[in-house]
């Protein structure tokens, strides 16, 4: 039996291709939604995943810097390093910066401090350049910030040179990340104007004058253990702890939890926090939107196949009149529906291939997602085919005589 479906399509190829193009665009949005969601999950956790510490030590009774403000003393890293079973500790500090660049465009990024010299950023996904080699004025930036190697970047009152470029290092909000040493990060974070520094100095002096030792300097000599109103160094947000090989992070965590000033989380817990906290709403939103798009695609496809069938009613009636089996009509309609679905599917893949890389945020489409889309398209095509078939089987041979 000759292939009627293909012959009919060939007869009006332009229309068929155009229809598939439109449908393919619709399906590409379904694919984009999936990719955007996957991208969000990866983006949200790329920082803790890359830093790769076993434990996150944060301010007591907080959930850590990804959830809320967490402040721990800079010296906590040293205390933790002394604990048996700990192989390495790194201070972690990060904060968002939004500013207007020289070109007038708003730049938003997240700045993170690397615990120089223990951590120079070797773990980062470096695409170009190198990790930090000096404790100051060097910065590793993400490629999404759009700066080339050796570019000069002024942050706060200092100018940094770009020594390395990462790819895909973004904050959970999708902003590019910048890495400097913890010392530089703290400087930037606590950067004060000259006037503020002067005022701060005077306030400090006034505090000392008001204290017992200020009122009676001789008392300082009498005191065995003087309690000076010392200036503490600025706090960091967390300390990353690596466990020695063979040691159980969970056991260490239980020991550390006894310390009254800190809370401890495993990497997994931090990831879960990010995935659930940061993107849960977005996930549901995207999920709903994607479902809606699938339903719309199904309706559109059903309508298209129905119209394609309507256009053929006379031919279908003629086929019936000639005594064609139902299978002939069934194959004609379902095959066309499937071909339309197939072509649309590949259009969607192609659009994804061409466009998704240019999206401002990561769009991550896995083969399993493509397979799932293929399944959805097959389902939609089948359903649309049935809609067309219902109409097709109602074709009445009498119509041929009546015309």
């Amino acid at each position, binding site marked *: *039996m*000759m292939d009627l479906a293909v012959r009919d399509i060939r007869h009006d190829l332009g229309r068929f291709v155009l229809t598939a193009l439109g449908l393919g665009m619709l399906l590409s949005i379904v694919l984009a939604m999936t990719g955007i969601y996957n991208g969000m999950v990866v983006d949200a956790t790329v920082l803790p995943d890359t830093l790769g510490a076993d434990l996150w030590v944060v301010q007591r009774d907080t959930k850590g810097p990804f959830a809320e403000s967490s402040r721990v003393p800079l010296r906590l890293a040293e205390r933790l390093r002394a604990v048996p079973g700990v192989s390495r500790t790194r201070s972690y500090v990060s904060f968002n910066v939004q500013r207007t660049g020289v070109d007038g465009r708003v730049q938003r990024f997240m700045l993170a401090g690397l615990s120089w010299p223990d951590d120079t950023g070797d773990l980062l996904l470096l695409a170009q350049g190198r990790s930090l080699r000096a404790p100051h004025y060097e910065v590793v930036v993400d490629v999404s910030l759009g700066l080339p190697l050796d570019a000069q970047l002024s942050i706060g009152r200092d100018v940094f040179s770009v020594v390395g470029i990462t790819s895909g290092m973004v904050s959970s909000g999708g902003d590019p990340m910048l890495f400097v040493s913890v010392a530089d990060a703290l400087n930037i974070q606590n950067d004060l104007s000259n006037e503020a520094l002067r005022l701060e100095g005077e306030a400090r002096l006034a505090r000392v004058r008001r204290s017992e030792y200020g009122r009676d300097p001789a008392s300082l000599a009498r005191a065995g253990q003087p309690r000076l109103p010392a200036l503490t160094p600025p706090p960091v947000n967390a300390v990353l702890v690596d466990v020695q090989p063979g040691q159980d992070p969970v056991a260490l965590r239980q020991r550390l939890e006894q310390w009254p000033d800190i809370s401890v989380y495993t990497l997994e817990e931090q990831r879960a926090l990010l995935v659930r906290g940061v993107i849960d709403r977005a996930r549901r939103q995207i999920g709903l939107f994607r479902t809606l798009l699938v339903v719309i695609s199904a309706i559109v496809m059903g309508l298209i196949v129905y119209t394609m069938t309507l256009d053929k009613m006379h*031919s279908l009636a003629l086929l019936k009149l000639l*005594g064609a089996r139902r299978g002939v009509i069934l194959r004609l309609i379902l095959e066309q529906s499937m071909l339309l679905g197939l072509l649309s599917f590949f259009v969607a893949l192609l659009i994804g291939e061409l466009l998704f890389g240019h999206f401002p945020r990561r769009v991550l489409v896995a083969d399993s997602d493509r397979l799932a889309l293929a399944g959805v398209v097959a389902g939609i095509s089948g359903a649309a085919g049935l809609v067309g078939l219902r109409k097709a089987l109602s074709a009445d041979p009498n119509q041929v005589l009546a015309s």
Partner: protein
Amino acid sequence: MTEPARRTVVSAENLSKTYGEGALRVEALKPTSFEARAGEVVAILGPSGSGKSTLLTILGLINAPTTGSLRIGEVQVIENALPRTSLERQRRQQIGFVFQRSNLIPFLTAEENVRLSLEIDGVNAYESRKRARALLENLGLDKRLLSLPAKLSGGEAQRVAIARALIHRPSVVLADEPTASLDSSRGRQVMELFRDAAHAQGAAVLVVTHDHRTLDLVDRILEMEDGRLTERARAPGAGRSPA
């Protein structure tokens, strides 16, 4: 070349058809009996609305008669009580249809339209192509094999339709005003085709026509009047001319 046996291929007894119910009831075909033999061309004449098309749809196994019985070829169709699938098979194998116009499937070429009649009954592509080409060449359409129906003239399209109706060698060819959209010389050509086919293939050809100028080419004339079928006495000089 005439069929020696002249067997009866259509045999209708008390066929009738009533459309609708109550006030809308139309007795389109009153109880009618007739026979048609192999190799015969039968013209059916009658005014509009007299029930000619209704009769053809019943003979063509498209509509079931309200009463009566019908035999086509070897198969007895009593009030179309046969299952749908075997009615379809009867249509594929026993019957050829030609209508006034829009006979052809627009997305198939002339050759494919003819092949269709064979392929829906399971003939393979090679065989169907060979036979379709031979027949179309015979009808002078060898330059038109690959043309779509929209590119054919009315007369060409009608010859393709006739080829499609004949290619599977049916025992009955049913034609509903096949010459209505053609000028008189082309109309005559079509009627000659039917006559030749009837003689060559031994088919009974039933043609509904308004075209009285071609009646000299037919063997018998049936007249339809208000749902009633009567045989007209042969006009002198009309009828089969010796081949």
